[in-house]
């Protein structure tokens, strides 16, 4: 059973546009929600993360929006650049499991120049 559901599977955006990736979860015990960026042949790298006590977190061009009541969170990439082309994974974890991450299935983002 997929603990975290992610959509879309793939996304093509023009340079300068906004990329939006959505995730949903069921387990209300989750209390940490990171987004990871993965380039081919590399391990996932943390992009930005949020905890459920805030509804939005922004770091540069990357913003997480978090809706606790709907159990949904999303990643917005503003002014998307070709260098942002990668696979993005949302994840969730709960403190008492020691930070085991439950990952979404990934979104392959392509930013067209």
């Amino acid at each position, binding site marked *: 059973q997929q603990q975290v559901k992610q959509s879309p599977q793939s996304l093509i955006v023009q340079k300068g546009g906004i990329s939006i990736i959505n995730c949903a979860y069921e387990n209300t015990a989750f209390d940490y929600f990171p987004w990871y960026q993965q380039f081919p042949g*590399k*391990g*996932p790298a*943390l992009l930005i993360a949020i905890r459920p006590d805030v509804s939005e977190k922004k770091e540069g061009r990357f913003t997480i929006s978090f809706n606790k009541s709907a159990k949904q969170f999303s990643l917005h990439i503003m002014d998307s650049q070709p260098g942002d082309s990668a696979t993005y994974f949302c994840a969730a974890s709960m*403190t008492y*499991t020691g*930070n085991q*991450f439950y*990952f979404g299935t990934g979104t392959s983002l392509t930013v067209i120049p």
Partner: protein
Amino acid sequence: GAGVSQSPRYKVAKRGQDVALRCDPISGHVSLFWYQQALGQGPEFLTYFQNEAQLDKSGLPSDRFFAERPEGSVSTLKIQRTQQEDSAVYLCASSSGSNTEAFFGQGTRLTVV
């Protein structure tokens, strides 16, 4: 080193062969995780160590998979009698504590032929 180091980067094994995958976490990180990432999928949890203690091995797919971290630093994931379905990228991650950023290595790509 500065990051999580995994070796080998690539491993080709004949079906039935035993393999050992090594992970050197970031120095001082108490938490260590192993994940399995199938092609085009998100990482899936295998096992978790806190120092030398294996606190969760619920994700190990069969008794052919075994992990250890005897001195609380370097970890080894061993797969006995490899099968074709074991072909995947095996990722190691470490973190300094619960619900803190996890840093991933580049992974070991295992191909069973």
